[in-house]
């Protein structure tokens, strides 16, 4: 019987089979950040253990570091400096490569790891961060772990992993022009539920996936964790190979030829089977916006917030009621009925150059500015993204339209005690989580694509950029 892409990746990395479907898997790359990596490094130091392969371990400052111009070790988060200093000192002591605050390649871990060629197709990569599944978009076996598992990987170059079940989500049809990879993944979560991929390695396939540029594939796989999946995967193709070529830590010369030969074998065989299979049509996919406090609480941008009376069961009714109370929305209304207070473009989901280009192109094409009273931020995902955007003049477009233009980092994707939007502030956000309090106490987060967020920022209410249909004609 044929193998799936996941089966092939698992097999290549299996050091030894343990009992009950567990395997000792080889970990090719470890990435840490100052939020949770600091704990893993400190713990390793405390126990007098060393990093087994320091050249395969990397670290960045992204979660806690400020994104305001002129930033340094001091942070708006009260004890943020402690995390930064502890991470730097541990990284130095362990002699692992750190992309420190002033490093030109500093940025959000899941933005810089593909950008620098640290994440590559066919590699296994772990990070104490749930969005590590982003790198599945390259065809890497990448998954999020806790600090103790990160410590295990640092000390042994391996992890003991229970083999996940496999799932294929196959998209049929062609993605409409106004729908982005973000809309595709939000729609998938809406259809499958926030636990719909529980414990599975999910392969995304279909023509819509083949047509997606690599950065969009990263966006799609990024939110696999919002399906509660082990990871998401997309088979590498020629676009992926071209994307990886020439990156700082990517192989060169003969090693490159050997690598791409291996990568081309990383496809699901035609006769392979999955434990679960879903088919979703994307022909009529509309831009998606979340209305509630779970990523599964999504609707078409012009749809209605569900009525509690229509909930399928008591548990959903209770969850919807809590969510609607928190979000200050009512069943039966449209999201465009509520004034917007803020807009955020950034995060490991949507802070790459293509995301910024998409939003800036809207501003340039329409000549619109951010609506009065709306606080709008654009936070590039990395130093490289920021410089490339500035070279194209995107920063001027954003600033000219009323957006703040920030330094790279996770910024207000989550609230660590520093910057926040404020209670009951309604935010259109390109981030990945709309959990209660995620962006700050009482903040009402609506997740959407960069195009929907920029359109909403200018309108002053939640709105998608859709072509005007001339009904008179």
């Amino acid at each position: 019987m044929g193998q799936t892409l996941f089966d092939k990746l698992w097999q290549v990395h299996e050091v030894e089979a343990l009992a009950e479907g567990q395997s000792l898997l080889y970990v090719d790359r470890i990435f840490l950040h100052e939020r949770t990596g600091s704990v893993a490094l400190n713990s390793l130091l405390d126990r007098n253990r060393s990093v087994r392969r320091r050249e395969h371990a990397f670290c960045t400052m992204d979660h806690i570091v400020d994104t305001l111009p002129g930033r340094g070790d001091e942070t708006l988060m009260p004890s943020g400096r402690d995390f930064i200093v502890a991470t730097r000192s541990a990284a130095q002591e362990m002699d692992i490569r750190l992309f420190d605050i002033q490093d030109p390649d500093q940025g959000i871990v899941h933005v810089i790891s593909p950008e620098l060629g640290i994440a590559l197709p066919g590699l296994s990569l772990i990070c104490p961060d749930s969005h590590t599944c982003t790198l599945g978009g390259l065809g890497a076996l990448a998954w999020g772990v806790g600090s103790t598992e990160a410590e295990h990987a640092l000390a042994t170059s391996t992890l003991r992993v229970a083999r996940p079940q496999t799932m294929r989500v196959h998209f049929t049809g062609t993605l409409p022009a106004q729908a982005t990879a973000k809309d595709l993944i939000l729609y998938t979560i809406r259809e499958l539920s926030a636990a719909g991929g529980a414990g599975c390695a999910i392969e995304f396939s279909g023509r819509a996936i083949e047509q997606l540029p690599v950065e969009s594939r990263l966006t799609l796989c990024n939110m696999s964790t919002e399906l509660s999946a082990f990871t998401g995967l997309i088979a590498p193709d020629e676009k992926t190979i071209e994307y990886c070529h020439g990156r700082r830590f990517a192989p060169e010369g003969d090693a490159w030829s050997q690598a791409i030969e291996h990568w081309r074998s990383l496809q699901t065989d035609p006769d392979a089977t999955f434990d679960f299979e879903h088919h979703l049509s994307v022909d009529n996919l509309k831009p998606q916006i979340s209305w509630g406090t779970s990523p599964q609480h999504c609707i078409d941008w012009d749809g209605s917030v569900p009525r509690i009376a229509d909930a399928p069961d008591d548990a959903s009714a209770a969850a919807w009621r809590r969510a609607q109370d928190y979000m200050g929305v009512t069943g039966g209304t449209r999201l465009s009925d509520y004034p917007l207070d803020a807009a955020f473009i950034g995060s490991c989901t949507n802070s790459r150059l293509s995301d910024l280009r998409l939003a800036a192109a809207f501003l340039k094409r329409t000549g619109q500015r951010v609506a009065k009273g709306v606080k709008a931020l654009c936070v590039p995902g990395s130093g490289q993204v920021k410089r490339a955007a500035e070279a194209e003049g995107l920063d001027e477009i954003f600033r000219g339209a009323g957006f703040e233009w920030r330094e790279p980092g996770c910024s207000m994707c989550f609230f660590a005690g520093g910057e926040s939007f404020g209670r009951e502030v309604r935010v259109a956000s390109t981030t990945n989580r709309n959990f209660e309090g995620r962006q700050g106490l009482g903040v009402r987060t609506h997740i959407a694509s960069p195009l929907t967020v920029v359109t909403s920022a200018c309108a002053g209410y939640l709105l998608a950029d859709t072509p005007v249909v001339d009904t008179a004609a």
Partner: protein
Amino acid sequence: MKPFIRHEGVAAVLPRDNIDTDAIIPSREMRTVSRSGLADGLFAPWRYTDPDARAADSDFVLNQAEFSGASVLIAGHNFGCGSSREHAVWALMEYGFRVVLATSFATIFRNNALRNGLLTIQLAPDQIDRISAWVRRDPQANQPRIDLEACSIQTDPAAEAVPFQIEANAREMLLKGLDEIGLTEQSLDAIAAFEVRDRALRPWVYLTG
């Protein structure tokens, strides 16, 4: 890691699905580079009407007298979804929880729990409902007894114990309080041999310097 053999204690019922780790321990409550100092921030957004002032919300289960001293948590499906922060497990344990019963768990949370001696038990929805109903009748008196050696939960003494399943290796790790790194260090030769084979197959993986 402290071994887990059996535990009997007050159970708190929090019948919600998709309880995420941001709810269990918000990022703003993770103030130090350590595994401790987290109990106060456990469920902060739900436990306090004003988390900054630590004003207790009397409607929340952990603030209700009948559930005081809770060390077993009963929840819905997909418990621990979201962020990979191990702080969620450390916060639960520092507060005093030793066991979480739920209809399902997010994988990273479950892995983190196992590595810290927090027992997670997956049960069918009707089992959760029955245990919850029994607990609620008198939470201080009706304390479930969880036996990891026997893989069973004793509730009402008149009723039969509820059996549960757990992988043998996870069970052994918990029973013996094993350090997983120590276990894997026994495979260091196998890891080195793997690298020799793998380097021939995938030389491009191995960086220098």
